[in-house]
């Protein structure tokens, strides 16, 4: 009889179990020898290790890139899913390794995001591993079980059904068909029930304006790639406004293209935004002036009136590009948005650059409905309020009143202001643990699939609602049912649902017919009066930072440490003021000022921002939340270190009190602000312009500071300029690094780069770059391998901003390599400048001798903060210890991966097989990487571009990174060339 083998004592002591794993090994004689024992011990240990390493694969997941025969430990698998970071609904590919997602990338063929993914979307992966998440449902602040919570909820809801009282589900924009269905079915079981949506970055006025002008309350899809002329009015569309990745991709597509007319972009703005920095013409105007300007432009375009000044020029441009232009405004003012719609209508932009037929679902929020809800709560008409993916107590003005609702249910993933006041907390899965779907733009349906088993006892929002609606079902079934019933019939390409489902799951998204029809223009809309300008009033402009767009992300240290693309400040919000106002009030950066709007006041550190209008104070929203209290302990502590949190124990201060509500709509500007110095100071941590050092004028004349680091070229010179950089003939040293195989190189298009900083977070997660904390950044010890150097310049077209991604240049004649005494930094045969961590003793000479200052030193032991967040670490990249130098490796682990895979398949590495993390994430596709030795590779072709140059070429260090010059279109020059043409 064959002996029975066992893997663990449990198994051995259990009676014969037929269903147990096949552990019978044949042809073994009876009686265990020492050899047998050892063999068995080894087997059982290996088995235990193997089974504990990885969570069981998700049953219904289908890998996107290649379907493996089985789980291979140490081998990454990729799943297509949809981003849950904001409502933009970008397509993602999630890298799963040994049962845990460790990296997020853009889905290359996604119709909206087109391969890019923003900083927020990538950083949101950390939400899975956040140690502060709710691990179990909470009943009145005490951890409970789902059975108890469900029983409690059912009885409370029954009481409401009998006794009356309103029930509201309050969420941020929900464009998931399944979630909308689940909410609807839940609300149908209750007498007075409604779903209220609102957005922290509101576009309610745009939707309302379309209700007025086109008869449909909808947000048109903006198609920036089709626009020859773009006029933005305080709309940070390359930043957090509506759909950053989609808009950046469209915008940059026009900037990257080699032929065809260049798109022209004018931005009218009061503060300095990412988008304004990128504009060809930037007009700095206070909000009231901008209102008047839009009125004048509308007047000129609609009534054919002759215009002058800025309005006349903009109108002339727009009229010259009828049907190929786009006017967008970020204002929360309905009249302004109506005027924008009328301009776009008059120019024939609906149907070309604005798609109202297949509208966007990325903003559905209705501020007036929220205002009604708040009124209802005040009138005590609401018996129960269920809040999902929103934190209204924190981010709604007057949201405190919601805590008075008799039954407040929160579905928060982690403690926030709303869940703190909630009677019941039913923690939702993170977006990486749950089944879900979305239709961010009509006709673009996509699926969200789990890539990790829920880490705690959390439950999907839609499961909770179905449970309480009396039809419990797992989320997977709910999503599948919704798709079978509502999505599948909207397409005809695949006749079989299962095949359609599988194909969609693999690709992540599917194109289906759009359900909505276009609204017709209502011509009789009356034009309101020209808004009056208030000459001396100081305005308060509330905005959202690209790097920290909403309070819901304020738990995320990756985003707090990500420098704001414009101000380069981390771990704070601040009162941004223009240099003129600062001089008039004798305020310098770091002074704590009190902002007073009459009713409300707030103290914030000031920041003097060149280019900002002098009648404007700008403050970012989304800061000062309870979630940021956790950062009290972040960073390395020693006796002179300062805490990352401010005096209030939090990161920044919450400015939501200034949000003005007019006619139910939330407005983010207020006028008549007073600004007073408090006499105190607050140290802001900035990765650039540390402390108050400024370049004395006699040392660096205006603009001279950035020459020739960032180079630009006039659009008119593009055709006539010399092609590409020529290899410098002078060379003192022998070519002893021939790099005969591959020679990796990179090209970065500065004209396409917007500075959005997605690459920084991509690099940080891919390469296990530690989070240093505010104090270390203040000491200029930020650890980012890839940084975005920001330079301002000024000409007749206003202030421009150039963002230059700066990373290790992998110089062929690297100054760092010769000076390292221990040979810890070397040149590879493939042109890489390599850092050998375990040989590095940390003399820092390499860092001193690096002309680009891209090396990063581990001043302390940064990565020893124990917590579940460590599960996000990439196992392919070493975690560096204290005292060691590190820097960009050109993602050498990815290069090796591609080479191993190519060798396995017996084929050469193809162009495009290796994508660095920064390149992959770039929404603008400004980064190209590849083999410079292959003259046909995309990178080699791009490097020969006539715009190509290398930074600090005169040093002859021969960097492997080529930059493409910024193209400057002077307004005058373009006007002339148009006349010529």
């Amino acid at each position, binding site marked *: 009889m064959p002996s029975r083998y066992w893997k663990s004592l449990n198994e051995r002591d259990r009676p014969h179990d037929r269903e147990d794993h096949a552990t019978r090994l044949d042809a073994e004689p009876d009686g265990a020898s020492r050899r047998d024992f050892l063999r068995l011990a080894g087997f059982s240990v290996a088995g235990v290790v193997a089974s504990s390493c990885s969570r069981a694969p998700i049953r219904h997941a289908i890998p996107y890139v290649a379907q493996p025969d089985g789980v291979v430990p140490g081998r990454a698998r990729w799943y297509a899913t949809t981003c849950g970071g904001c409502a933009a609904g970008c397509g993602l590919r999630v890298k799963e390794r040994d049962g845990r997602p460790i990296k997020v990338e853009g889905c290359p063929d996604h119709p909206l995001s087109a391969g890019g993914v923003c900083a927020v979307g990538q950083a949101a992966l950390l939400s899975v591993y956040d140690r502060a998440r709710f691990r179990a449902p909470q009943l009145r602040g005490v951890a409970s079980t789902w059975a108890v919570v469900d029983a409690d909820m059912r009885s409370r809801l029954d009481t409401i059904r009998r006794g009356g009282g309103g029930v509201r589900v309050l969420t941020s924009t929900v464009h998931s068909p399944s979630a909308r269905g689940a909410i609807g079915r839940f609300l149908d079981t209750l007498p007075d029930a409604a779903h209220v949506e609102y957005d922290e970055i509101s576009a309610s006025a745009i939707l309302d304006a379309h209700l007025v002008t086109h008869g449909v309350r909808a947000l048109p899809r903006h198609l920036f790639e089709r626009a020859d002329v773009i006029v933005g009015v305080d709309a940070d569309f390359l930043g957090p406004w509506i759909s950053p990745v989609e808009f950046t991709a469209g915008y940059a597509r026009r900037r990257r293209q080699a032929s065809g007319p260049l798109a022209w972009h004018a931005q009218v703005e009061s503060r300095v935004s990412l988008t304004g920095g990128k504009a060809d013409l930037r007009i700095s105007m206070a909000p009231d002036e901008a209102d008047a300007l839009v009125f004048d432009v509308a007047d000129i375009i609609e009534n054919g009136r002759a215009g002058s000044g800025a309005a006349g020029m903009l109108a002339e441009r727009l009229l010259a590009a009828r049907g190929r232009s786009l006017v967008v405004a970020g204002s929360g003012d309905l009249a302004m948005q109506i005027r924008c719609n009328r301009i776009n209508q008059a120019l024939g932009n609906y149907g070309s650059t604005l798609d109202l037929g297949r509208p966007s679902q990325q903003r559905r929020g209705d501020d007036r409905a929220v205002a009604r809800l708040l009124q209802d709560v005040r009138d005590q008409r609401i018996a129960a309020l269920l809040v999902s993916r929103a934190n209204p107590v924190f981010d709604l003005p007057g949201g405190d009143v919601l805590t008075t609702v008799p039954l407040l249910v929160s579905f928060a993933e982690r403690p926030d202001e709303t869940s703190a006041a909630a009677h019941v907390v039913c923690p939702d899965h993170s977006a990486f643990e749950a089944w879900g779907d979305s239709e961010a733009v009509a006709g673009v349906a996509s699926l969200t699939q789990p890539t990790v088993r829920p880490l705690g006892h959390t439950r999907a929002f839609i499961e909770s609602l179905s449970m309480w609606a009396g039809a419990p079902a797992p989320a997977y079934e709910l999503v599948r049912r919704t798709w079978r019933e509502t999505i599948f019939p909207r397409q005809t390409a695949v006749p079989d649902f299962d095949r359609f489902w599988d194909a969609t799951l693999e690709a992540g998204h599917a194109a289906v017919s759009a359900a909505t029809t276009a609204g017709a223009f209502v011509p009789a809309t009356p034009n309101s009066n020209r808004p009056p300008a208030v000459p001396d009033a100081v305005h308060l402009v509330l905005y959202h930072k690209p790097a920290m767009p909403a309070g819901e992300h304020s738990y995320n240290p990756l985003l707090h440490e990500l420098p704001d693309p414009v101000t380069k400040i981390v771990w704070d919000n601040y009162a941004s003021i223009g240099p003129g106002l600062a001089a008039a009030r004798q305020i310098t950066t770091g002074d704590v000022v009190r902002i007073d709007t009459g009713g409300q006041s707030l103290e914030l550190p000031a920041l003097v921002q060149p280019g900002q209008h002098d009648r404007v104070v700008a403050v970012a929203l989304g800061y000062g939340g309870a979630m940021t209290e956790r950062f009290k302990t972040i960073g390395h502590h020693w006796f002179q270190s300062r805490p990352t949190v401010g005096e209030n124990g939090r990161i920044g201060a919450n400015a939501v009190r200034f949000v003005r509500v007019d006619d139910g709509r939330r407005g983010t500007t207020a006028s008549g602000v007073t600004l007073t110095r408090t006499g105190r100071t607050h140290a802001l941590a900035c990765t650039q*312009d540390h402390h108050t050092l400024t370049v004395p004028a006699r040392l660096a004349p205006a603009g001279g500071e950035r020459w020739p680091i960032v180079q630009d070229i006039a659009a008119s010179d593009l055709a006539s300029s010399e092609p590409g950089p020529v290899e410098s003939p002078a060379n003192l040293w022998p070519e002893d690094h021939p790099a005969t195989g591959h020679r990796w190189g990179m090209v970065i298009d500065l004209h396409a780069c917007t500075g959005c900083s997605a690459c920084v977070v991509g690099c940080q997660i891919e390469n296990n770059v530690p989070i240093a904390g505010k104090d270390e950044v203040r000491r200029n010890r930020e650890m980012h391998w890839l940084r975005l150097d920001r330079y301002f310049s000024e000409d007749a077209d206003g202030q421009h901003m150039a963002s230059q991604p700066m990373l290790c240049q992998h110089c062929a004649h690297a100054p760092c390599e010769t000076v390292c005494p221990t040979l810890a930094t070397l040149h590879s045969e493939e042109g890489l400048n390599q850092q050998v961590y375990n040989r590095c003793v940390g003399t*820092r*000479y390499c*860092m001193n001798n690096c002309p680009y*200052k891209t090396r990063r030193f581990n001043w302390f032991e940064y990565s020893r903060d124990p917590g579940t967040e460590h599960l996000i670490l990439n196992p392919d990249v070493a975690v560096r210890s204290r005292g060691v130098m590190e820097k960009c490796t050109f993602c050498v682990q990815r290069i090796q991966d591609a080479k191993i895979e190519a060798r396995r398949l017996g084929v050469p590495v193809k162009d495009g097989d290796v994508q660095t993390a920064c390149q992959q994430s770039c929404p603008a596709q400004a980064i190209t990487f590849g083999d410079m030795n292959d003259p046909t590779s995309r990178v080699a072709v791009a490097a020969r571009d006539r715009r190509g140059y290398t930074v600090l070429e005169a040093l002859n260090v021969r960097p492997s990174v080529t930059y493409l010059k910024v193209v400057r279109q002077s307004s005058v020059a373009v006007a002339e060339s148009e006349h010529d043409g």
Partner: protein
Amino acid sequence: MAEAMPTRMRLPLIDGDKSLAQVTRDVCAPLDRRAGFPWWAAFLLSFSALGVGLVAIGYQMVTGVGVWGENNSVGWAFDITNFVFWIGIGHAGTLISAILFLLRQRWRTSVNRAAEAMTLFAVMCAGIFPIIHVGRPWVAYWLLPYPNFRGSLWINFRSPLAWDAFAISTYFVISATFWYVGLIPDLATIRDRLAPGLRQRIVSFFSLGWDGSGRTWHRYELVYLLLAGLGTPLVLSVHTIVSWDFATSVLPGWHATIFPPYFVAGAIFSGMAMVLTLMIISRAVLDLRDYITSRHIDVMCKLVIATSGMVGLAYITEFFTAAYSGNTYEQFAFLNRAFGPFAWAYWTMVSCNVLIPQVLWFRAVRRRVSAVLVVALLVNVGMWFERFVIIVTSLHRGFLPASWTGYAPTIVEVATLVGSFGLFFTAFLLFCRFIPVIAMAEVKGAMAADRHERSGVSA
């Protein structure tokens, strides 16, 4: 010596018309008597400073280099400033003992022992910094080439830091040997004066059986001459190599061919100032005014003013080179040095190193010992700032304006600097207690020659 021109112009090297026995008694007096209050006070102060430094270094070892104020652009600051400063201080010793010996400058005999000791202690202070400044000091020995099993992994012989390791260790070994060899006859003198006991046995061991015979003297003189010959190039080479730490880089403000002579001149300048400081104090405290006379101080002041001129010339040359080169980065680096945020450090350096030493042109000032002491102290301050200016102002605003930063030292850094002074003075005070501060044998030899010269003229 035979063709040395006897002249009345040369004043006696020591005052007081001492007999040979009296020299021995005077020089050995501090060794014989118990330490007085001034010594104990000075020792406790220095030792406390050393303790502060040790605490600072210990804290830094446990916590990380991050407890210093350095950052991603300014990778070196106080650490390498202190290192170069102390190495520079060490130069005067070798200069006095080796070069002046070869040049037959007999006035050196009164100061060479102390100057050499100072050299050793300064090099010890300097040697601390390259070790503690690295991120992982426990593997700092990887900077040395040694046979190993890491696939026979060698150091990077192209790195100036590797050259540094060689230069400094060589310098320390040669200086220590030279100092010790010069000490042997005096140790024998002490041995002969001591009563039998432990101390006598120790001194006896280190005097290597010196018997004072003609043959011993002959061998001794030969070895001393050879070591002087060996030491002479080191005076030039060590600081030349230290300067290459900067000169071989690509950084504007560092990348300069003038650095080797500039650094050597600066090192001798600072070393002389330190010798002056120590001599002025110890001649007063140890009552050696007859041996270290105002004439000695006068000669050293002249050396100070000569090297001050060289340093000043180097400052001017740097600016000329930057202007003449047409290189905007180079020009910016120097304008930033003189007018940027660290202008105060630059002008402190210029004032202390070039302007203030000019008062030494006046004999009246050179004769006023207190005035000379003030000037010498200021020169030391100035030379410390010279290294600080070179290192920090070049690093904090490099090529890319986006990486421009500031720099401010932390308490730990300042404490480490204080600690290095503590080590230096602790060692020097111990030296004063246990070893004759003046090379007795050499002074006696010089006295003999002196008498011979003068008697020859009068005869």
